[in-house]
């Protein structure tokens, strides 16, 4: 291969993945520079590892009752104590960690995909489509917090998948709004006009040029929303509208804790601490990332 050819292929290669690669590289660089994003990130990785590997390492059955040892305080045998059926709470929390995080992740991924598509369409095409979509998002936003999820669960059966759908719908307007704003800002950049003049299709412009540019705010929002989703999901289970017994979902464990508050305070303590740890990790990660990516902060 002569140098001329090499140059050609080089150009081709960089052209192909440049916007994506640049965007991700840029993102990674900023991530590493921000301490709290890094701490949050490590915490998230540790929690994920525990959630995946943990259930294989615990020797006890999270669901099998043993009434001989019910409502025992934390001890060397049962680190977090036992519940009213004599089940080991530590084992249940380890299993529940996975369920709670799974719900949070899946709901956020589903909701963000829908929100991103809606937001891009709204911001990119503008006009009447934009007006109608955004009005509809306003309507969804009129149901604060857990209310929309609760209303949806009220007509669906309380189950894991329905909790995921309910939270995903609750996620859509938040993502749509942010993505629409970023899309609008990117769309008006000069090079996008140039791309259009060169005859690039909308799909190409969106996937190659707009999406990489709005990736960072989406990741920040996703991290913060997972925190929200975890609280909402465990809240729904706590109310009996989500995971049903004997599922060890963390919110459901808290619900047990409430019923046995008088006899065994420890039941509620640990599941709640673990929920807080998950939410904290994603909040710290999302906060740090936002600071790192915010140009206003970078200047200082």
């Amino acid at each position, binding site marked *: 291969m002569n140098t001329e050819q090499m140059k050609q292929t080089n150009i081709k290669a960089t052209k192909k993945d440049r916007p994506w690669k640049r965007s991700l590289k840029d993102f990674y660089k900023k991530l590493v520079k921000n301490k709290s994003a890094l701490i949050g990130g490590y915490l998230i990785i540790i929690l994920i590892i525990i959630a995946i590997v943990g259930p294989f390492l615990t020797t006890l059955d999270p669901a099998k009752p043993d009434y001989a040892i019910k409502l025992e305080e934390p001890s060397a045998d049962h680190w977090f104590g036992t519940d009213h059926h004599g089940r080991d709470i530590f084992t249940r929390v380890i299993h529940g960690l996975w369920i709670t995080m799974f719900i949070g992740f899946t709901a956020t991924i589903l909701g963000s995909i829908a929100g991103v598509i809606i937001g891009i369409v709204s911001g990119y095409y503008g006009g009447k489509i934009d007006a109608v979509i955004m009005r509809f998002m306003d309507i969804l936003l009129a149901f604060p917090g857990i209310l929309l999820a609760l209303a949806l669960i009220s007509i669906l059966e309380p189950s894991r998948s329905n909790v995921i759908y309910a939270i995903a719908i609750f996620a859509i307007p938040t993502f749509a709004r942010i993505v629409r704003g970023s899309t609008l800002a990117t769309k008006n950049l000069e090079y996008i006009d140039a791309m259009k003049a060169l005859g690039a299709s909308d799909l190409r412009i969106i996937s190659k040029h707009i999406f990489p540019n709005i990736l960072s705010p989406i990741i920040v929002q996703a991290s913060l929303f997972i925190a929200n989703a975890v609280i909402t999901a465990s809240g729904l289970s706590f109310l009996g509208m989500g995971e049903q017994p004997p599922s060890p979902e963390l919110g459901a464990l808290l619900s047990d804790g409430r019923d046995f508050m008088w006899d065994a305070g420890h039941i509620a303590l640990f599941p709640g601490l673990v929920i807080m740890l998950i939410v904290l990790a994603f*909040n710290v990660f999302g906060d740090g990332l936002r600071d790192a990516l915010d140009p206003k902060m970078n200047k200082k």
Partner: protein
Amino acid sequence: MFQFIVRRLIQLIPVLLGVTIIVFSLMHLTPGNPAQIIAGESAPKETIEQIENRLGLNDPIPVQYFHFLKDAVMLDFGTSWRTSLPVSQELAPKFWVTLELAVYSTIFSIFLGLIAGIISAVRQYSIADVGIMLVALFGLSMPNFWFGLMLMQWFSLQLGWLPPTGWGSPQQIILPVITLGTMGAAVIARMTRSSMLDVISQDYIRTARAKGLKERVVIYRHALKNALIPVVTVIGLQFGSLLAGAVLTETVFAINGMGKLMVDRILARDFPVVQASVLIIAVVFVFVNLIVDISYKFLNKRINMD
């Protein structure tokens, strides 16, 4: 200003219609025949038909929606399927309890959040600042129903200082308000801090110092008033989450408010009550946001260059 309010009110109409359509659809997406649920499993066919006719369940959907909307405007939400009482009659007392809870919690969170945020901003990077921001981060990350349980365990069960359940007496109010208001306080504290820091670096703060004003006057008269403007928006949003969060807090402390009623009736499949509760919370939230929007515009009027 008047024009702005009128314009915002007009913009509200499609949102309110949308909200009512969604709430109305909830009932119609429900699996099962409402008449059957009301009459019970073993009711004869005639009874069911009779109920269907009385409720207008055989009318075309748009007609049904129109009736629903007309009644809702008159605060008539039909009859409970479980107690056969008018829904508005069942809801009214509980609505006030929830509103009280939300208002007290909002006041608590504004009070605590503002003070903490100002201290943090004025002493940026001090131990107090780091401490407050750390506490705020935890406050933001705690599920409030768990926090409520922990408070109840300590202050009611272990120490016996405060009653664990109920609503009404000053002692009963303390724990639920702390439970519900803490997250809002954390959000407001963080917002106040960043807003204050933004303002403190402005040129007019330097001008105020150059005039020979005391640092206290500079902070409270010149910085705070400007810094509060963005915080107002957050307070509005917080009120919404508080209304929704009341569902959990009321369940934890067994408070007979609208939130707990809603949860009970979802489990009992009593849809008119659920529908009305969801609708009322959403509408209150929409109007609170309107008020926030107007006050934001009012406060911001002088800053806008146009």
